[in-house]
């Protein structure tokens, strides 16, 4: 978003001073209520578990200029990610000037390059809303579809090398014309999915939800009058912009740079740098991703709308969690990424598994912000989408996908959280009892990994280990995961968390550690155990400053080993198991002396990566 846009916004918002803050709140709540209602309709009417049960969808209202006003319960990666499609209808984007829009139309798209999407399974629908013959806004929704074709079931693999392997590309076209479903388009989409019946239900649910949002918005206009609603919408945008500005003003002026690393993409052998320079000038914030690695050969690329959603998440979490997620916030952030990099890929670079790179973008932004405002930012989190997929032949062919959580980074005054999803995702796991009933698999262990959280004054969150035993022949394991090469970083002298790892047949003669997080088609036999271990998280502050009592409890709870207690934390226990104060002080003194002669850690560290 250019500075010109920001200036135009400011000029625009000065025109509306006619509505009182109370009406703004009341109308804001009414808009949110509409978004929630149409979200409920979408979930109830859809077919697929992913939308219905996991609520992998978002609904929103936009104003006539295409700015997001209200979005219901969102997944961070969906934040503002309908704006790309809406923007192509509301104007200002070359090539879309002459789209014909009539009342009762609903548009569909999923294309990351031509439609403003983030990856193909996320299908967006937009209903332009008319009132007294004019377009007054847009009702939009986005939903993650379980299959839109492409070279693997689920249309979401990490190893595609071009967008054309990832599924059907739907440009911005009408799925409903003047209230009638355009059957030609619908049939076209359905034929390209492995699960057409499910798609049929989900798509109809999306289009009726979008249309209902329009009806409700018109009702709101009729109740309050166009001027009041529009003035309130603008006031809501202004409010978000002011909140962001106030939060940014708290950050000292300056430029802050940081680089974190994505594991090698599987084709290339080198870790991929994700670099950001954040420039704060008064209340203005700009993020420049210059220095980021070039476009990847596999599906970890991040298109514009995915990058924006990620930046919005990171700023909201890092600066002020209460900033409303609306256009006033989004339009006030300046984001640049050089073309041809992993954060500004060119069509048809593959994008399906964009989330790993998005997670690393958050880490880089947090790393930079930590230099400016260390008290607000935790140490590095596991920040991996540890996506694993078992398939094989049971009663019938099965596919079991799962995303495993890990540790979250230690905070400046508290430990990190064990075993949680972080940043742009918050998806749940499948219950073990459900998994075993459904697939020929048995979980032998599902537990925290001792010492996986980076040691520190505050300890990083622990990783998860899940051992899965294969019960039938012909099974295969595929995965895309990150943080197996570069670990989650400790801050302010805290140690790194442990990286993730996949191990076949652990503890046997034929044990094999897989070479990285992006693998496909690993053959497994009946009786084999596949061990999936996610990354831990970084610690905060020097381990020798950790409260010895907290260390003792960590040992009693099995969260650290006796080795770590002694060697890393320098804690000595008496025979009765309590902390031996004087002996601990002496042990810590000795460890400090030893580390002074060898260590030079400053935080947050900016380290050189060992080349492979």
């Amino acid at each position: 978003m250019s500075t010109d846009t920001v200036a135009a916004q400011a000029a625009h918002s000065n025109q509306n001073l006619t509505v009182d803050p109370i009406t703004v709140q009341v109308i804001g709540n009414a808009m949110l209520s509409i978004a929630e209602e149409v979200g409920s309709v979408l979930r109830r009417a859809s077919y697929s578990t992913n939308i219905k049960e996991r609520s992998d969808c978002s609904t929103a209202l936009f104003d006539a200029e295409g700015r997001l006003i209200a979005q219901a319960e969102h997944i961070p990666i969906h934040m503002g990610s309908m704006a790309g499609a809406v923007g192509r209808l509301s104007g200002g984007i070359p090539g879309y000037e002459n789209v014909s829009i009539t009342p009762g139309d609903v548009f569909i798209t999923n294309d990351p390059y031509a439609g403003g999407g983030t990856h193909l399974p996320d299908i967006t629908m937009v209903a332009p809303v008319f009132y007294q013959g004019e377009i007054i806004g847009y009702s939009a929704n986005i939903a993650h579809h379980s299959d839109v074709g492409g070279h693997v079931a689920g249309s979401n693999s990490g190893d595609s090398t071009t967008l054309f392997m990832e599924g059907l590309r739907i440009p911005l076209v009408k799925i409903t014309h003047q209230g009638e479903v355009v059957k030609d388009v619908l049939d076209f989409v359905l034929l390209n999915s492995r699960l057409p019946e499910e798609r049929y239900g989900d798509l109809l649910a999306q289009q009726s939800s979008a249309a209902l949002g329009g009806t409700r918005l018109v009702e709101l206009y009729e109740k309050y009058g166009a001027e009041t609603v529009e003035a309130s919408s603008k006031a809501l945008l202004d409010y978000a912009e002011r909140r962001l500005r106030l939060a940014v003003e708290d950050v000292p002026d300056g430029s802050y740079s940081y680089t974190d690393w994505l594991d090698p993409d599987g084709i290339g052998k080198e870790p991929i740098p994700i670099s950001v320079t954040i420039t704060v000038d008064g209340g203005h914030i700009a993020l420049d991703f210059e220095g980021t690695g070039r476009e990847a050969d596999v599906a970890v690329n991040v298109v514009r709308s995915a990058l924006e959603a990620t930046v919005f998440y990171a700023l909201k979490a890092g600066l002020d969690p209460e900033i409303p997620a609306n256009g006033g916030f989004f339009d006030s952030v300046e984001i640049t990424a050089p073309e041809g990099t992993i954060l500004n890929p060119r069509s048809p670079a593959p994008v399906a598994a964009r989330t790993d790179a998005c997670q690393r973008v958050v880490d880089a932004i947090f790393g930079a912000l930590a230099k400016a405002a260390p008290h607000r930012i935790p140490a590095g989190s596991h920040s991996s989408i540890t996506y694993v997929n078992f398939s094989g032949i049971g009663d019938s062919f099965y596919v079991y996908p799962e995303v495993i959580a890990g540790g979250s980074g230690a905070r400046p005054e508290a430990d990190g959280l064990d075993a949680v999803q972080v940043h742009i995702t918050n998806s749940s796991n499948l219950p073990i009892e459900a998994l075993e009933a459904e697939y020929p698999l048995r979980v032998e262990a599902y537990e925290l990994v001792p010492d996986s959280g980076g040691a520190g004054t505050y300890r990083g969150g622990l990783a998860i280990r899940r051992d899965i035993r294969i019960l039938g022949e012909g099974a295969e394991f595929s995965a895309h995961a990150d943080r197996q090469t570069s670990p989650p970083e400790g801050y302010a002298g805290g140690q790194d968390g442990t990286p993730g790892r996949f191990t076949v047949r652990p503890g046997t003669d034929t044990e094999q550690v897989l070479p990285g997080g992006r693998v496909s088609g690993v053959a497994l036999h009946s009786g084999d155990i596949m061990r999936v271990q996610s990354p831990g998280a970084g610690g905060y502050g020097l381990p020798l400053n950790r409260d010895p009592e907290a260390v003792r409890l960590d040992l009693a709870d099995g969260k650290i080993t006796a080795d770590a207690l002694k060697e890393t934390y320098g804690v000595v226990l008496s025979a009765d198991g309590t902390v031996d104060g004087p002996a601990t002080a002496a042990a810590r003194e000795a460890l400090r002396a030893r580390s002074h002669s060898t260590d030079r850690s400053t935080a947050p560290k900016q380290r050189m990566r060992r080349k492979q």
Partner: protein
Amino acid sequence: MRIGVDVGGTFTDITALDAQGNFHIGKIPSTPTDQSQALVDGVTSVLTKSGHQPGDVSYLGHGTTVATNTLLELNGSSTALVVTKGFKDVLEIGRQKRPSLYDLFVDKPQVLVPRRLIFEVDERLDFQGNPLRAVNADDLNQLRKNLADTDVDAIAVCFLHSYRDATHEQIVAEKIAEWFPDRYVTRSSVVAPEFREYERMSTTVINAFVGPRMHRYVSRLENRAASAGVAASPKIIQSNGGMVSPTSIVTRPVTTLLSGPSAGVLGAAWVSAASGYKDVITFDMGGTSTDVCLVRDGEATVTSERSIDGYVVRTPSVNVHTVGAGGGSIAKIDEAGALNVGPRSAGAVPGPAAYGKGGQEATVTDANILLGRQNPDQAIGDGLRLDLEAAETVVKKISAGLGSDQQQAALGVLRVANSHMARAVRKVSVDNGDDPRDLALIAYGGAGPLHAVEVAKEVGIRTVLIPPHPGTLCALGLLVSEVRTEILRSCLLSFSDGVTGVREVIEELREAAQSWFEAENVPQGQQLTQFTLEMRYKRQNFELPVEVGGGTINESDTARIAEAFHEVHEKTYGFRHDESELTVVNVKVVASQPVSAPRAASLPSRESGAVAEAETSRREVVFVEGAAETPIYARDLLRAGDVIHGPAVIEQEDSTTSLPPGHRAVVDTYGTLIVEVNL
């Protein structure tokens, strides 16, 4: 005489309904250290005042917050947990979600059992309940040593797949009870025998955590009631609205955890049904929050899982949606200039500024008082008067921030609070696929009737009901509810493979229901059992209920049951898959002792004169439409058939009703105010 007693944080409410259908109401301060003391004292005083004897009490229904408070305050028993080897961290991992999407400084709720008190047993069942590894003697010896080394008061046992076969859990739990007879022992196959290990384990551990305290409470309650000579043995309400004996509660105290709001919903459903409204949204506005719940065809909607402060509880409970807006909600202008109301609350201390206990921030109640909607001259106990000056001072801060006058600021606070509540009312209806405009709103709780008409107007609801005693509706709910429980078993059986497996589970549950009837002393002729199959299409992740009646089922019933499932699926989700395979996930039995619904006596109509006779005074009240010299009516002087036109305020001891200009209220034969909302 049927009596209901609701124990609240500050007051204990007693409502009694005598054989003639007359209500007798009492209110005394609660006794937090032993809730049963106020309960028995209150019952005794209502009996005395109404000229009844303890021997006249045929039914004593009671709602207790002992378990709820124990969990909220985290002061339950030191608890140990015994699990299947390899699964120590089921609770810590949970569903692996973080507690706040954006706030990096929010912690997960602390697991109730520290990891060092979680012990593993090397046993294992497969998903069909077949043993893969039996419980071995060495492990038991080690477990005994480990537990002996701890000083826990409660021990929970939860093994994988125990919902299919409880044998391993039973062996271990019985051993533990034998080793440590003074410790409270509970197992998941008794507490929540449902599949999904995290939810089952969480529920079982909470049961252990609150168990010993609940046990002590219930013993005191029974003793006190008996020594006061109360004829009926007390019944306690569960989260699903069913009443059970103290004995059942000692086994599963976790079933009371969310019972607080359920009694009010039942009372509201009963009042509404009497007045001819069976599809309503209940609206209970208290000091810190507002609870709303959808009632369809006279029955409160129920959900099978809730979480309380982040702790997941898998027991059926009335499906209440809570929003952080109540009388004590704080209004504040943030630094970016927005007026926020709630979710922060001034609570009981310091409370609203007008209460003169040091409240420094404007609350919804302060706004209601300054606008004259609540009587500014009312006494607030001990002869104290409201501190209007304090209320003005705090509301001035808001008006300064808004650049408006004091009235506009106070009105603004109410409008923002109302818009939060309107959103909640819409949510509970649209989430169920209902249009709120087709429903009525029934308002209760101290503050509900002050806000209900404006909230209804905002949502587009045409009818608002105000029950005769809005402040004590929970106690009423406790006396009209029936003895009832639900017992559930997960089975995950394919319905296409025939009904034999399902039939076996039904028969098991029938036996369980039978033992329950005996424990509750339900006479033979009054035992009602209703079975429900919770079914889904294969590979779906969610279940829908199909009622199959009280008898057994046969192969010849399959087509009928399948069709019933397809129909409920279509009704709920808008489509059906006739070709898909069906799975029976759970079988549930509802065992109850139906009561013939007690009836209230009707309110006489006015023999002569007009509604003006109920008018006690006038004062200036400010509505959104403007200020008006407004008649104040005394609720107890109203008679059936009276019609009141807004603007009006109707006052009674436990609540105040605000009727803005343009709306009309009619008093029906049960004394309920039926407000016709002018949209």
